[in-house]
């Protein structure tokens, strides 16, 4: 579909907005609806949209499989790492209060990194599943 002018123009317009909106959802999750899960899914949806227009091969050049697979694992590691950081700083596992100079600050910091971890894993898994499904068809034709 990459020769379709309408799709290409709309894609150009939409994809940056989708990614920007995902970042907004990610970092504004403390104040409004949203958070890591939603943001990860929206990023993945934006990239899937790109893949629908420009093809999976181009998308795999843009976001290679190695990056996606790393994201899948890195998110969980970030989340667990936040827990371990709390442990090392003298609190309980996943107790964010010790991460900052006062408990509220620490909670905010912990929640921020936890959400980053969730978003990374969710986005990675969504993209990986998408890649896996779409690449099967090509291999068997």
């Amino acid at each position, binding site marked *: 579909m990459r020769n379709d002018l309408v799709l290409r123009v709309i894609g150009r317009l939409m994809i940056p907005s989708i990614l920007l909106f995902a970042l907004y*959802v990610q970092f504004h*999750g*403390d*104040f*409004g*609806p*949203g*958070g*890591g*899960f*939603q943001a990860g*899914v*929206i990023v*993945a*949806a934006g990239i*899937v949209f790109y893949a*629908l227009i420009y093809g999976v091969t181009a998308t795999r050049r843009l976001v*290679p*499989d*190695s990056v996606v*697979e790393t994201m*899948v*694992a890195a*998110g*969980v590691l970030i*989340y*667990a790492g936040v*827990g371990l950081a709390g442990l090392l700083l003298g609190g309980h596992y*996943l107790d*964010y209060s010790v991460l900052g100079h006062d*408990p*509220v600050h620490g*909670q*905010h910091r*912990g*929640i921020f990194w*936890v*959400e980053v*971890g*969730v978003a990374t*894993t*969710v986005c*990675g*898994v*969504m993209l*990986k*599943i*998408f890649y*896996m*499904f*779409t*690449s*099967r*068809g090509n*291999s*068997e034709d």
Partner: protein
Amino acid sequence: MAISVLAIVVTRNLFSVIVLSGAYSFLMATVLVALDAVDVAMTEAAVGAGISTVLLLGALHLCKSLEAKPAHKPWLPLAVSVATGALLVYGALGLPDFGDPDAPIHKNVVPRYMKNEVEVPNVVTAVLASFRGYDTLGETTVVFTAGAGVIALLRRRKQGSEKASGDA
């Protein structure tokens, strides 16, 4: 929503089933917005209507687009699902009214959540990431496991060589 569900059940063309389920997800998202669960609605719209539609279309690309005739009559599954639905409705009748401030769920930990010790204005985020941190870690791990399972099942096997799928 009921119309789209009935159409999904009746239709044999899988392409229209997928499009209808996407429409169903969007309707469900609007219902969730009406119930003030905006976080869930966003997820439902992005996952249910967006990504899973694309995934199902990708899966459809791999197989025939007409559903096969069922091999047996659907009476037993129908009876089971109707009975389960009736049981759930019967159980729901015993629940407190929607939004009732005296409901038991609002009496135990919710006051503490609402006092908002972590001073994050979005209570959903506070509960998910802080009060229920272990649960969310578990959920993330579940998502990770799902991804790892898909990778393990579908990774393309190159003839002869154990090459990673990075260049596939």
